[in-house]
């Protein structure tokens, strides 16, 4: 409100009007005067004052009727009306005045301070009312503007208010009805409506038994989630398929040799690594193979698969292990199949204790003799696959009945900030004092891997030469 508040004063009695107008002006109000009810109504309409003061008894349109007209017009109903009447009309006038919608009723003669205080109080009430009306307008605009669908439900679940977004879903005549879908959504937190997915939020309206139900369209977000899940599932299928090509479908078993294998990536189906193991049956025995292509992921796994299958081809063509590994190295350096790979191949011959071993930069196998402490089967290693022109020679060690072997990849023994030798020493120690292959596997995994997720892939191949067969 700027400047002094404006008051429209209507009274046909000039003297009475002069007295009241003077009181009001002295109290700091701007006063516009008219002489009857009809003029009062048109003046209020033409230029709405802050307050209208109407004398009850006027010729033509009296104060009651003027008030009724002001209060029944949408444009002027918010203007407070003060009715002034003579004492002798008190009772009837008071009742009628209130019924016409007058805000305050005063009887003559009125004291100046009382009149001014009454009008100031009316102005304060009006200004509060204006604030409330403004807040309601803002809230209503917001309610209509938000893209989430919002409904206010009463205690019976009937929609008492709905914004345009909600009407767009449930129809324009949704107000006054119960919507079954909203009841369902309140239970589940999510709602499927004509191929759209909405998340449902329910808020209690404080101090009432009403609820505000908000539906947010999450269709796009859900679709992205579904696509992501599908892509992940595809990737896992590829990984799993690849991993399966890296590992033998079954481990051969005979009465002379028991085998047991463990593969971290295959077991946890999470990471694809370049680690693999293989058991190749040859004419006179078996080859035990373990290897590791540098790097991770699908590419490393694919390269490991190629190395594995190439070695099988060389074995079946009758090459020895040193020559086979040399050929693999040629393959790697000539075709740039991979930068680098390590592998260890052991050739076991049926009925013979002597085992040939070739290592291409791979950590040495652990030998667990039946009658002594575990130790490394060999101390020396050849060059990793990937160095052009490298040659390989085999060395030999004895693998007697009751002895066991552990072939592994470096993920088992490598820890950041320590020498790999320390990890190997830990592995050797872990192999002590446990019988059988499965218990040995359990012991090794417990002590070297534990519950934590290793940084690298791990493969483990265990073998035991049967003590029942006469190892001639």
């Amino acid at each position, binding site marked *: 409100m700027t400047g002094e508040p404006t008051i429209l004063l209507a009274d046909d009695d000039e003297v009475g009007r002069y007295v009241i107008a003077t009181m009001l002006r002295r109290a700091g109000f701007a006063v516009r005067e008219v002489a009857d009810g009809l003029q009062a109504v048109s003046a209020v309409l033409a230029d709405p004052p802050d307050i209208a003061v109407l004398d009850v008894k006027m010729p033509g349109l009296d104060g009651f009727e003027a008030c009724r007209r002001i209060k029944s017009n949408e444009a002027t109903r918010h203007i407070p009306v003060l009715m002034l009447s003579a004492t002798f009309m008190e009772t009837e006038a008071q009742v009628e005045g209130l019924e016409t919608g007058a805000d305050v009723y005063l009887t003559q003669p009125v004291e100046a301070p009382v009149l001014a205080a009454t009008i100031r109080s009316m102005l304060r009430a009006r200004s509060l009312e204006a604030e409330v009306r403004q807040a309601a307008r803002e809230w209503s605009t917001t309610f209509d503007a938000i893209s989430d669908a919002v409904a206010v439900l009463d205690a019976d679940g009937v929609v008492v208010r709905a914004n345009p977004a909600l009407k767009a879903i449930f129809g324009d005549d949704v107000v006054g009805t119960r919507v079954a879908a909203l009841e369902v959504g309140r239970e589940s937190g999510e709602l499927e409506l004509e191929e759209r997915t909405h998340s449902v939020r329910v808020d209690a309206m404080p101090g009432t038994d009403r609820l505000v139900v908000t539906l947010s369209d999450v269709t796009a977000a859900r679709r992205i989630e579904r696509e992501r899940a599908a892509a992940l599932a595809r990737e896992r299928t590829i990984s799993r398929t690849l991993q399966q090509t890296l590992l033998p479908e079954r481990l051969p078993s005979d009465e002379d040799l028991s085998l047991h294998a463990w593969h971290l990536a295959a077991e946890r189906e999470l990471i694809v690594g370049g680690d693999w193991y293989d058991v190749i049956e040859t004419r006179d025995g078996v080859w035990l193979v373990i290897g590791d292509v540098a790097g991770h992921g699908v590419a490393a796994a694919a390269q490991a698969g190629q190395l594995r299958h190439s070695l099988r081809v060389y074995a079946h063509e009758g090459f020895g292990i040193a020559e086979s590994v040399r050929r693999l190295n040629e393959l790697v350096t000539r075709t740039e199949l991979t930068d680098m790979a390590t592998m260890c191949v052991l050739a076991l011959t049926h009925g013979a204790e002597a085992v040939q071993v070739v290592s291409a930069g791979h950590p040495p196998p652990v030998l667990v003799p039946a009658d002594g402490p575990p130790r490394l089967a060999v101390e020396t290693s050849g060059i990793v696959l990937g160095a052009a022109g*490298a040659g390989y020679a085999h060395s030999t060690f004895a693998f007697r009945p009751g002895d066991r072997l552990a072939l592994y990849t470096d993920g088992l023994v490598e820890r950041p900030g320590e020498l790999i030798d320390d990890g190997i020493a830990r592995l050797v120690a872990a192999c002590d004092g446990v019988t059988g292959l499965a218990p040995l596997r359990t012991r090794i995994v417990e002590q070297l891997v534990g519950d934590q997720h290793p940084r690298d892939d791990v493969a483990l191949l265990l073998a035991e030469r049967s003590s029942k067969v006469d190892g001639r």
Partner: protein
Amino acid sequence: MKPPVFKIEPREADGALVLALSGELDLAGAPELTEALDAAKASGRPLTVDLRELEFIDSSGLGALVRFNNAAAAAGFEYIVLPGPPQVHRAFVLSGLDQALPFSS
């Protein structure tokens, strides 16, 4: 403690180029090393790869050196490698690369 960042410092020594490697050499540093080695080979000057200040090397680092060694051998380019501290040199021994690369004694 600041992480040991991988660094390559080129140095001149009697007309020869010395590439002094320090910090931790892994997948992140391997491409930079490959680039520096290839440039040194292209210059045709005698080269020394100094690993004495290297703190760590993984298979990616070994791979970069192996690849360079293959290319150098094919081109008839000669160079020498000064071995790193024990934990670094151990990686070369375990992978057999102590036999394949031209380490100076």
